C-alpha cells in the first residue's frame, strides 16, 4: 500500500521526467542531425525555411534573424534570401567625430519629444540609447535626422517601377533628384547653411516617359523639431509651363501613383514628433541588404528591357517585386522601432528595423487602420564614397510591397553622396523650371 501509494505519488513525476528526457534527446538528436552552420551563398526560400530555420549563420540561428513579417514574405511572397557574410561598415571619420563631440550638447525634451543643441553626426550615439528609456524610440528616429547620405544627396537615375504580383512589370517613371541638407553638413564647408530655418531641400524632375518628362517638384523642410510648420512644396507643371504651390500637408499621402507614402521615403521620413508615439521594441539581429551591388540602374540598357535596366529587382519570377536572387543578405544588428502615426495617417503602425551603429533603416512594415499587415519595406543599401571622399551609406533600392493588393512600387537609384560642385542655390525653387526644362539630364 505504502509502496503503492509511493508509486502512485511519484508516477507523474517519473513520467514527466521520462518524457522530458525523451524530448531532450529528440531535440538534441534533431539538432545534432539537422542544425548546422550554413555557408555564405546558401539561399533561403519557402521550401527550405522550416528545415533550416534553426541552422546558424555567423553563430546566430536563421530564425533569430528573420522577423515575423520577413518570414511571412519568404513563405507567402516567394522571397529568397541569399546569405552573405556581414562586413563592417565604417562611417566617415567626420561623422564619427561629430557624433562623439556633439552628443553631449544634445538635449531631449520629454515634454514635447523635441531635441535641441544638435549640430551634426548622430544626436544619440548607440551607447546612450537604453532599452528601458521610454523615449528611446524617439531618439532612434531622431538619429535619422543625421542622415548617413552626406551633405548632398544625388538620387541619380532614380526610377519607380510599378509591378503587379500576377502580371509583373507595368510601367516606370524616371527622375533626376537632389537633396541638399542645410544642417549637419560634413563636407568640409560650414556645418550649417543659411539662417538655420531650413533643414533640407529636395527637387525631383521627371525625364521618362514623355508625358511626365519635364515635370518637377521642389520641397523644403523646415528646421522645427515639433514638426508644426509644414513643408513648402511646389510643382513645375510642364504641360502648362508654370510652377504651382502644393499642399504642405502631404507627408502622409502617396508619392504620385506609387505604393509609397512620402513618409515611407527611406522607410521612415517623418520626424518623430509627427508620430504620436515611437517605441523601441528591442535590439536584435536581422538579415538585411547592406551591400547591394554597385550599379542599381543600368542606364545602358533600354527602357524596353526593364529587367536589365533594373537588375537588382527580381522581375523574372512572381510576384516580381522581390530583391534579385543574387543579392546578398547579411546579419545586421538593428533597433526595432514601432511608430504610432496620428489617427488621420493611413497606417495604424509602422515598424522599422534600423542599424544600431548608424541610422540606416533596412526593413520595415506597416499595418492598416484595421491592424492588418499592409505593406512590407525591404531596402537595399550600400556604402558609397562621395566625390569629395566622404564615406556615406546610401539606400539604393526600395521595395515597397503592398501585400494586401498584390502590387509593388520598387525604386532604384545609382545614389551618390556629395556630388561635386553642387551649391545650395542649385537646389532651389528658382532653379526648378530650368532643371525641369532640361529634364535633369
Amino acid at each position, binding site marked *: 500500500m505504502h509502496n503503492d501509494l509511493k508509486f502512485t505519488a511519484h508516477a507523474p513525476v517519473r513520467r514527466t521526467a521520462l518524457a522530458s528526457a525523451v524530448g531532450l534527446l529528440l531535440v538534441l538528436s534533431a539538432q545534432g542531425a539537422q542544425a548546422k552552420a550554413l555557408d555564405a551563398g546558401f539561399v533561403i526560400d519557402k521550401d527550405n525555411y522550416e528545415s533550416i530555420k534553426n541552422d546558424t549563420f555567423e553563430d546566430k540561428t536563421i530564425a533569430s534573424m528573420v522577423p515575423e513579417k520577413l518570414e511571412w514574405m519568404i513563405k507567402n511572397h516567394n522571397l529568397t534570401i541569399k546569405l552573405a557574410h556581414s562586413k563592417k561598415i565604417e562611417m566617415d571619420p567626420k561623422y564619427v567625430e561629430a557624433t562623439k563631440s556633439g552628443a553631449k550638447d544634445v538635449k531631449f525634451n520629454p515634454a514635447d519629444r523635441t531635441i535641441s543643441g544638435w549640430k551634426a553626426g548622430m544626436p544619440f550615439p548607440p551607447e546612450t540609447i537604453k532599452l528601458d528609456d521610454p523615449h528611446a524610440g524617439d531618439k532612434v528616429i531622431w538619429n535619422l535626422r543625421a542622415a548617413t547620405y552626406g551633405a548632398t544627396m544625388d538620387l541619380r537615375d532614380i526610377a519607380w517601377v510599378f509591378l503587379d504580383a500576377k502580371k509583373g512589370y507595368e510601367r516606370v517613371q524616371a527622375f533626376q533628384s537632389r537633396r541638399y541638407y542645410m544642417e549637419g553638413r560634413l563636407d568640409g564647408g560650414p556645418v550649417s547653411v543659411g539662417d538655420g530655418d531650413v533643414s533640407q531641400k529636395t527637387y525631383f524632375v521627371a525625364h521618362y516617359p*514623355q508625358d511626365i518628362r519635364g515635370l518637377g517638384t521642389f520641397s523644403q523642410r523646415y528646421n522645427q523639431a515639433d514638426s508644426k510648420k509644414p513643408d513648402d512644396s511646389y510643382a513645375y507643371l510642364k504641360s502648362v509651363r*508654370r510652377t504651382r504651390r502644393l499642399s504642405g500637408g502631404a507627408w502622409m499621402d502617396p508619392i504620385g*501613383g506609387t505604393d509609397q507614402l512620402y513618409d515611407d521615403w527611406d522607410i521612415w521620413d517623418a520626424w518623430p514628433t509627427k508620430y504620436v508615439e515611437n517605441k523601441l521594441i528591442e535590439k536584435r539581429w536581422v538579415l538585411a541588404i547592406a551591400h547591394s551591388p554597385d550599379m542599381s540602374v543600368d*542606364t545602358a*540598357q533600354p527602357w524596353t528591357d526593364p529587367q536589365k535596366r533594373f537588375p537588382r529587382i527580381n522581375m523574372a519570377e512572381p510576384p516580381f517585386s522581390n530583391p534579385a536572387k543574387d543579392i546578398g543578405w547579411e546579419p545586421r544588428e538593428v533597433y526595432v522601432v514601432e511608430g504610432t502615426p496620428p489617427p488621420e495617417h493611413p497606417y495604424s503602425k509602422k515598424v522599422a528595423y534600423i542599424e544600431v551603429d548608424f541610422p540606416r533603416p533596412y526593413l520595415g512594415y506597416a499595418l492598416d487602420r484595421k491592424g492588418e499587415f499592409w505593406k512590407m519595406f525591404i531596402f537595399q543599401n550600400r556604402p558609397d564614397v562621395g566625390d569629395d571622399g566622404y564615406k556615406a551609406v546610401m539606400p539604393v533600392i526600395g521595395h515597397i510591397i503592398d501585400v494586401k493588393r498584390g*502590387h509593388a512600387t520598387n525604386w532604384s537609384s545609382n545614389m551618390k553622396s556629395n556630388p561635386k560642385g553642387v551649391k545650395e542655390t542649385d537646389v*532651389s525653387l528658382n532653379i526648378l523650371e530650368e532643371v525641369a526644362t532640361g529634364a535633369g539630364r
Partner: protein
Amino acid sequence: MTSKGATKRKAASIAVLAALAGAAGGPAQGANGEGSSWAADDFSFNLSGYARGWVSVNLQNQPELDVIDKDSKGKLSMVRGSLLLDADAKTGPVKWKAIGRADREHKTSYLNDLERLRETNGTAVGGHSSSITDNYNNNELREFWAEMPFGDRVTVKVGKQQLVWGESDFFHAMDLVHGYDLSWRLFFEGENEEWRKPLTLISTKIRVPEANGMLAAYVRPGVDRCEDIGNTYDIRGGRWFFQPYRGFDLSAVTDKDCDHPDGDRDDVTGGVRWSGEAFGLSYSLAYLTSFSADPVANSAFKPYKKAPSGAVFDLIHPKIDVLGATVSGYSAALDAVLSAEMAYTKDQPFNVGTGAFLAPNVPGHVGIGLGGVKKKNTLTTMLRIDKDLDLQGLFGTSRPSFSSIQLFNTQVLGFDRDDDLVRLFAYGTALTEHNTILTAFTTLNYANDTINPGFAIGVDLSHGGGFAIPSLSLTLSDEWLARIEADIFWSGGKSNKTQFSNEPSQLFGYFDKASQLVFRLTRQF
C-alpha cells in the same frame, strides 16, 4: 498669308521635323542604349515625343446646318493625328531645345457639310483656306531655343520659346506673353503648352537668393510671324467657330492686320517680373507690354487709325500694358493652398456698336461691333483654393484627390453703358462691367494612377451658361495613354441662332450646341 514666304516656312518646318525624325532613328540610338539618348561628360542628347490621335463626335445638332438640311448629332467632328518630336541637348554649359509638331486631319462628312455652308453664306471664295481642313493641318517648329548661364545667377534663353507668367487655370490674367491657338482644340485640352503660340524671345532669369527671389525679364524683338500674334480662333467656319457662324468663312471678308499702328508685330515688346518667397507665401509682381490676346475688328465702316484691307474688317491686336501680381500660400488650418492673381490692363481694346448689323442700338453707330474701337482699362482678379480632398473612403480612390475651385472676374474700369461696347465683334451683345466665371475640378486616382476619372465644371455667374467635362484618363503602359471626355456646354438661354443679329449671346452662347464626346489615344516614345 498664303504667300511664298509661308510656303518656305512650311518647307523649313518639314525639314526640321524630318531632321528630328532622322535623329530619332539614327546615331542617337547608339551610345548608351537608352533608345534615343546620348550622354557623355559634356554632351547629352535626348529625343522623345508622341504620335497622338483624336476622334470626336458631336452630341448635338447645330442650327447652321439646317440651311443644307443636314444634321450634326452623332457625326464625327474631328479625326486628327499629331506627331510631336521633342529634342533636348546639352553642349557644355549650353542647353538646346527643339520641338516640332505635324498635325493632319481627315475631312469628315460633318466638316464637309460645314465647308458646303460657305456656298450658302457667300464665303465660298476669297477665304484664306480652300479646304476646311487647312484650318487644322499644320507643320510647325514650335520651339527652338538655347539657354546658357552667365555666372551663378544669370541664365539667358534665346529663341522660339514659351514663357508663362501667372497663376490662373482655364483663363488668362497675367499669362499674356503669348496668344493661343484655339482653332483646333477641344475646349479643355489640358496641356496648354500644346496650344500656346510660341514666340521668338530673349529671356533672362536673375536669381537673387539674398532676397529669396528671382528677377525675370524678356524682350520680344519683333521677328514673329503675323499668325504668331494674339489668339487664333476657328474663324474660317470650322467646328469651333462660334454659333451661329459655323460654316461662315470669315477670312473671305476679313484680313488679319499685324502692321496696324496700334498693333505692329515688328514692334519690340517685353516685360519684367519679380517672383519670390516671403512670410511663407509665394508672390510675384510683373509688368509687361504685349498684344491684346483677343482681336478686335477694325471696321471698314468706321476705320480705327488705318483703313482695313479686308472687305468688312481687319482683325487687329492692339498693344496693351499689364501690371499684375500673384500670391499663393499653404494654409495648415484649411490644409489647402490659397492663390490670388490680379492684373490691371491698360488700354484693353473693345469694339463699339451693340445691336444688329443693320439695326444698331445707338443711332449712328454700326451694330455687331463694327462701329469702331474704344480702349478701356480692366482689372482681372482670380481667387482659388486647391485642396487634396480625402475621397478614399467615399470613392475608394488610392490617394487624395487634387481638387480646385477658382473664381475669375474681369471688370471694365470706368464702365459706361453709353460707350456702347460689345463683348465680341460679330455679335451685338453689350459688354457688361463684370464677367465672372466660377470653375472647379477634381481628379480621382485608382490603381496607381492608371485609371483617373476627372470632372471639371465652369459656370458664368454673370450671364448664365457653363460647361461640364467628365473625363477618364488611362495610363495603359509606358507607351500608351488614352483619354475619353465629354465636353458639355449650356448657354443659359443666351445664344444666337441668327448671324449679324441682336440676339443675346454671351460667352457660353458661343459654344452652344458644340458639345462633344472625345477620344484621345497617345503612343509616346
